[in-house]
């Protein structure tokens, strides 16, 4: 018995040590960033109009990308979770591909499909919508690199809902859409919110694809790169720090959302 307790204690210490090291690895760079430059970043909010512009542009584009990802990605995720069709695995794998592509390459690939020389881009341009060099390009870049994360997580959220609940609702006469709205959606809501949060955060951080499509107007990631190259760390760190501080607000708020009819528990 004492030996088993000793082994348990050693295992616990090792686990705690590993956990602490891992936490340190994740938290220390961000903590250092905020500690070093958080105050000057907040001060900059008041006298740096370019930074304010970049922050609101980032919030606007990342939120638009997230909304587009939810609207377009939720049906796809549901289909992947519930559908039994040929090529489902292939489709799921294809949807992971954007995560695999180096981001500047993703930017060029988007440009080839949405640029003014492409069929889509040319018709968009005729309709007055320019992709490259505009906020539309930023949203496209963000959506491309972050939507796979949403779809993958949302698919898991749907898969965790017991199909029997849906079957019961259907036997009670609910049409499919109503079953989805009244049963599936509430049961998977926590997972969907988590998926959307991850997508939003990934969109906010995107740099490589955005800088190919739209360097100006600048989102925060591009601005911090720009400040670093032009002026050095003193000017770049506050930009990154203020982004971290501000992004913490929606991230925490969304994480705190716990719909009552959660799946887990």
């Amino acid at each position, binding site marked *: 018995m004492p030996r088993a307790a000793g082994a348990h*204690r050693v295992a*616990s*210490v090792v*686990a*705690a*040590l590993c*956990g*602490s*090291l891992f*936490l*340190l690895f*994740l*938290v*220390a760079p*961000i*903590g250092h960033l*905020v*500690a070093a430059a958080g105050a000057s970043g907040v001060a900059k909010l008041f006298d*740096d109009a*370019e930074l304010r512009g970049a922050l609101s542009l980032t919030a606007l584009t990342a939120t638009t990308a997230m909304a587009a990802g939810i609207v377009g990605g939720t049906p796809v995720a549901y289909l992947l979770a519930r559908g039994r069709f040929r090529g489902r695995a292939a489709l799921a794998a294809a949807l992971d591909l954007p995560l695999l592509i180096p981001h*500047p390459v993703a930017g*060029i690939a988007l*440009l*080839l499909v949405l*640029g*003014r*020389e*492409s069929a889509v881009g040319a018709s968009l341009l005729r309709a007055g919508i*320019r992709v*490259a*060099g*505009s906020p539309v390009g930023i949203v496209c870049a963000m959506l491309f690199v972050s939507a796979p994360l949403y779809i993958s997580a949302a698919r898991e959220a749907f898969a965790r809902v017991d199909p029997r609940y849906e079957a019961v609702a259907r036997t009670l006469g609910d049409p499919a859409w109503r079953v989805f709205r009244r049963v599936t959606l509430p049961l998977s809501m926590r997972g969907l919110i988590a998926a959307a949060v991850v997508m939003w955060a990934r969109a906010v951080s995107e740099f490589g694809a955005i*800088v*190919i499509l*739209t*360097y*100006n*107007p600048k989102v925060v990631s591009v601005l911090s*790169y*720009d*400040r*670093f*190259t*032009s*002026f*050095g*760390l003193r*000017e770049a760190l506050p930009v990154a720090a203020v982004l971290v501080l501000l992004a*913490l607000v929606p*991230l*925490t708020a969304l*994480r705190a959302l716990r719909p009552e009819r959660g799946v887990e528990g």
Partner: protein
Amino acid sequence: MSQTGADVPFYHMSQLSPLPPSRFPLPALFALLVAVACTRPAGEGGEGGGTLVVYNAGSLARPLRAALDSFASGAGAGAGGTKGTARVTIEQENAGSLETARKLTELHKIPDVIALADYEVFPQLLMPEHVRWYAQFARNRMVLAYTSRSRFAGEIDSTNWWRVLQRPGVQVGRADPNLDPNGYRTLLTLRLAEGYYRTPGLYDRLLSHAPPRNIRPKEADLVGILQAGELDYIWSYESLARAAGLSYVHLPSAIDLGDPADSADYARAEVRVVGRTPRDTLTFRGQPIVYGVSIPARAPHPAIAQRFVAYLLSPAGRRVLRGSRLDALDHPAIVGTDAPAAVAAAARE
């Protein structure tokens, strides 16, 4: 900081909850680790003898790669060196010239060799702390690069380019003048063009066809966008356009910043870009485009760096650079003090 960090985003902590919290005070352990991490500054670990770390401007990526490869394969190993048989591991990092300089000044990452598209960056940002001398070793000129799909590609030439660029629908790309020498050199060329073609207002009209949305951080970033068809023309360097297989318009030498003989004319143009802070401005005067190379004072592998730079400046190195379309100077000039003897000797060959 550790507490907010642990509380907010790291909900996976709950998975460790079976641990009795009193016996294993995770926050204390965490704080200890933070303290340990903070007391040991990260050092630039010196690697094995045969490593050569090179930071260079984007437009030097190909020519330097060629020189490095031929150096590593033995062509240069004997030049000025004694132990020429050791295997050389090359680590090359390409970035904008100013970005490259910032890696040293801000991130304290010190390479063995640093090569920049504008030698002026050495005195402006790196001397005397990081670099005590530099060698001017190659030159370049501004060109207007395009592809066969560019609008009016069949018509444009050295005499009408400034009219073609003003036609409706023509999209011109340029590098960011605040980040990249090519960016402010583009502005200088446009200033010079206004005087050369005696057309007041030409500078502003040409810039209106290269609006902010057509700007990218550095000139090398523009090539892919030109090839994707989003832009019709990009302001670039001759070496880069040739290496990328692009067509380009040869500009009159009075405005292309390529001829040291025209230095006095170039100096008449000036442009203002942002300076040391976002609210500060810096004025650049026109001067010929000359590349500079140096070995930082604290280079981790100075011996092999000296052998490589000596090779780069030697007649053999110049031939390799010219083979990659870089216009290597016949008489590299060394500026500053304490240049290694082997490097100075190679430049005189």
